[in-house]
Structure formats: structure tokens, C-alpha cells
């Protein structure tokens, strides 16, 4: 997903939304949306993956393997499918 850099979009936030699965290892962001059913949302919720949380992506495995995220002191591994349902807003200003 591309964010157009046109000036018409000047008042758009300096951030872009992508899925957790598309984030790069090492990138930080804030979870803004979870496109899953109740069951999945509850499951993710219990381990701290929920809207409003700041997370860092630690790594991802090859061939659509699991994604690992860190938030505070916990690391959680979640499947690629789940990770593609988690929308994250990447902070472009504080890119590392």
C-alpha cells in the first residue's frame, strides 16, 4: 500500500498504515485496527495485541511464517494470517 506524496495530502498524518505482516523487522508502530472475528480479537487481546498498543516487529520467518512482535517486556509469535489482519500505523517521522 502506497501513500501518495502529493501536496493535496498535506494535512494527512505523517504516518502510513500497513498490516503487521508487511511491516519490516525492526519497525515500530501503533496498532490501529484488528480485522478479525471476536474469537481472534479476544485471543490477541489477552497477549497484549490490541488497538492502541505500540509495538516493535522483531522478526518474520520466510515463506509466510510467523511474525514476532515485542511490546513492553513481552514477545509474542503470531501466525502470518493473523498478522495480516492487524493494521499498524507506522510512525514515519521516527523511522529507525
Amino acid at each position, binding site marked *: 500500500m502506497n501513500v501518495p506524496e502529493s501536496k493535496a495530502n498535506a494535512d494527512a498524518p505523517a504516518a502510513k498504515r500497513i498490516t503487521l505482516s508487511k511491516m519490516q*523487522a525492526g519497525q515500530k508502530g501503533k496498532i490501529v485496527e484488528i480485522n478479525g472475528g471476536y*474469537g481472534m480479537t*479476544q*485471543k*490477541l487481546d*489477552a*497477549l*497484549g495485541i*490490541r488497538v*492502541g498498543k505500540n509495538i516493535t516487529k*522483531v*522478526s*518474520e*520467518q*520466510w*515463506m*509466510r*511464517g*510467523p511474525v*514476532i512482535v515485542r511490546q*513492553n*517486556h*513481552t*514477545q*509474542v*509469535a*503470531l*501466525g*502470518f*494470517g*493473523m498478522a495480516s489482519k492487524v493494521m499498524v500505523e507506522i510512525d514515519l517521522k521516527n523511522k529507525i
Partner: protein
Amino acid sequence: MKILLIGNPNVGKSVLFNRLTGANVIVSNYPGTTVEFVKGTMKIAGRRTELIDVPGTYTLDPVSRAEKIAVRMLEERNHEDVIINVVESTNLERSLNLTLQLIKRKLPVVVALNFWDETKHTGISIDNKKLEKILGIKCVPVCAITAEGIKHLVEKINDAKPADYHYDENKKWNEIAEILDKVQTITHRRYTWLKKLGDASVRPLSGLPIAAVVMFLAFKIIRFIGEGLITYIAEPLFLNLWTPLMTKLSAILGPGKFLHDILIGQLVGGKIDLEQSFGLLTTGLFVPLAAVLPYIVAFYTVLSFLEDFGYLPRLAVMVDTLMHRLGLHGLAIIPMMLGLGCNVPGILSTRILETRRERFIAATILATCVPCAALQAMVVGLVARHGLVYLTIIYAALITVWILLGTVLNHFIKGESPEIFVEIPPYRIPYLKGLMKKIWIRIKWFIREAIPFVLLGVLLVNLLYRLEIIQFVGKFTAPVVTRILGLPREAVGALIIGFLRKDVAVGMLIPLGLTIKQLVIASVVLAMYFPCIATFAVLLKELGVADMIKAATIMLLSSLAVGGLLNLIIPA
């Protein structure tokens, strides 16, 4: 009054349980070590009180089978029962979620703030007094592994009471965030080498080589310890001390007499042969104590270290993609690793998998293709002297079938398997005393559970031969055993005894004088064809009769196919 230990997975409930009761429950550093509740007793103010170690759960909305057990335990409690809510201090936010749910159910709770020591070097400071005030329940800092704060916790158990704390369920995370704001301050967080190693273990470029190195080292160390114990301790003890004693006994009893044959067994070239005589006091003790026990010690030393260090969940991440081909996800590697020690705990731990489909696939391929340490010890002892290539053939055959069988089951069993979703705990340097204790628990378990069966097996071998039952069955099974598998008729004896103990079964092959090709085939078939009685019992319990029959059919057919194929392709 009963006390229930409740908390998130991997917060140290079982460590606390061992501390409070003096019991010996296996503890590790990965979520889902405890999959069934465990009961023990402790004394509070002189009164015997029952303490229950409940499997970990993140919420009272259960997902996995282990979590369901936890919630059921809560629902079945009596109203005077008390709950110790074990909490990970370094992860207060997530832990408080469960604490609030317990409070909401008006349960009498005391909070044990475990890993208190770890907060110090992770830059977290928690004001437990303030937390007590806010929640209205006692919150006691403890470090279960070193026993710090345990006494204090016990004193507070009688103060457990339902809290008068109200919050809006929909805003629970805001509520928790507000609580955290008040009681917790986080200072710097150092990026320690353990953390770096932890991260490197789950990045593909570094993680795969790390996994390979860990597996290679594990194998090398197990072999080093196992062979070392056999060569320098077990065998010398038996040969120099035990055999002379038995030789005297043999002379007293008189070779050929019934009691002599049962206790000492057959003399080989006029002498006692610890491997071949097959008496209760000779082979019956030599097999479990000198051939198998050293490898049990070696295997559990390495496995226990990996468990406590926290490597297993990371290995799960690295093998996740492979496991998906088998209809499983990465976590299923944990039951397999446990199964390499003994299939029984391996199959029990399939409970960490969410669906029945996964548990069936995992239990079936485990019971079919994962050889236990006792079997492996005997096979290594027998086959390695002919060259490592033969050992490689055995393992390669088992791994190939493991993958193929999983792939086939995944293809034919309806339904999908969920994705991996697991907390990756930090690497922790194992606490040596705890590690030693755990290895010891497992060794004791082997001695208690295995040796009686080994002796029974050896006794049965003698009776079956004496009554000519093995010879009799051999006639009927010859078409399969001889034609398809290329083994001598008498090998059927090993297949019969294999149901009791597989190590004894492999031992029965020794006097048959098999060729190396036959040894390889017999080893693979013995590993696969049917579970031993202990594994059979847990399989039946976990799968039910119908699925057990399916699993057993799969084992029999696939072992026959693999054995037959090996017979065709290995040059004589």
C-alpha cells in the same frame, strides 16, 4: 479449604507449588508446561490444606484445552476456597487482566508478584503497597525459585477476600493502564546479551543456523554424557562387581534349573552374558541401569536445560512453516521433543494444541515415529558399532515417515489447523538447583516407572520361550516377519515384548545374531509398529477408543510398509 494457584502461562505457578508443598512437579520456561491440574498439600497455621496447581490461562474465556481445565477448576471450587493469583511482575499489564477478571467474579484472591527479582535488572519498579490499596487485596512480592517472600505469602493466605473493586469491562485496558500509571515506574531498559541472543534466535538468517547448532550440540552432548556414563561407570560396575556375584549365585542355583534360568538366565559359552543371558538379575538389571539409564540422564540433562533456558518456544517459531505441512503449527515441536525422552509426557503435552484434529495428528505421528530415549539407547548401543551410516538410516527413515505421515493425515483429515500464537518468554539462565532437581525428578520417574516393566518383560520373555509360545506364534507370523520384513521368525518375540518395553524388545534381538540390515529394519519397525503399554494407555485416554484404533492401524500399516521397503532397498 483448598487453595488454587491461578495465573497466566509461564509465570511460575508450578515453581511456587513445589515451594509450598515440597512436591516435585516439572517446571520449565515455556507456556504450557502444566497441562493438567496437580494436587498437593501444605500446612497453614498447623492445618493441612490442599493446594492445586492449575494450568495457566490468560483469561477466563478459555481457548486451549489446558485453559478450559483452569476455568473448570474455578467453577468447581467451594466457596471457602482461596485463590493465589500468580503474577509476572515484569509483565504486570497482562497479568492484571486476569487479576481483574478474578476480582470481578468475587473470588477471594491473594496476588503473588512473582519474578520480583527480575524487575530489578529490567528497570521496573512496582509499588506493591499502592497496588494493594487500589485493588483491595494483598499483593505479596515473591521470587518462587529462590523462595524469597514465600513465608510472607503463606501468612497472607488467610487474608484472602473478595475485593470491592469495580470497573467497566469495556474499558478494562484503560483501567489497567491507570493502575499501572500509579504503581509502576519503568526506568532504562538495557539490551542485554541474553535479549540479543533471544532476538537472533527468531530471525531467519541467524535463527536457522542457531537451531542447527543447538540440535547438533544437543546430540553431541547427549552422546558424550551417555557413552561416558556407560563406559566409565555403568559397565565397569556391572562387569567387575555384579557379574562375579552373579557367577557365584549361578553356581549355587545350578544352570538349567528353573530358578537359575529365571534369575540368571542362559549361560553363553559357560559364562554370564549381561546382554544375552536374559535373567531377571542379569539382563533384567543391566538393560535399564547400564544401557538405558545413562542415556536417560544425558537426554534429560540437555532437554531440561533447553526448557529452562527458554529455547523451545523459539524452536517452535523456526519450525512453524514445516509443521504447517503436517497440519500442525510450530508449538507441536514441544510434544515431539518431550517424546524423544518418553512418549508418555510427549502425548500429554499435545494438550497445548487447540484443536482435536491437531492433537490427533500430533499424537499419532509422535507415537509412530518419535523413538523414546530407552529405545534409542538400546538401538545406538546395538547399531553404532556397525557404523554411523546405519544409525543415520534409522533416523532418516523415522523422520521421513514422520513428515510423510503428517502430510497425509493433514490431507485426509477434514478441518483446518490454527496458526501459532504463543508468548516467547525471555531467555533465562537456568537456576542450577532447580535444574538439578528437575533432572532428578525425571530420573526417579524412569526408575520407578520403567524398571518394574523391564523386569516383567524379561520374566515374560523367559516364560514365553519356555512355554514355546514365541516359537508357536513365529510359525504364523513368518509370512510377514520373514517374507516382508526379512527378519528371522524368532524376531516376533521382540514384537510381542515391545508392547511392554521397547528397550527389552531391542535387547531380545541381540541373541538372534541379526545382520546389520536386519538390525536396521527391526529397529525401525520396533520404534513404529505399536506403542508400548504406557504410551498406549495415555493415547487411549487422550484420543478415545475410535481414534486410538485409527492411530494403531496407521502404526501397524506404516511400520510394515517402511520395514518392507527398507528390506527391498538396503543391500544385504
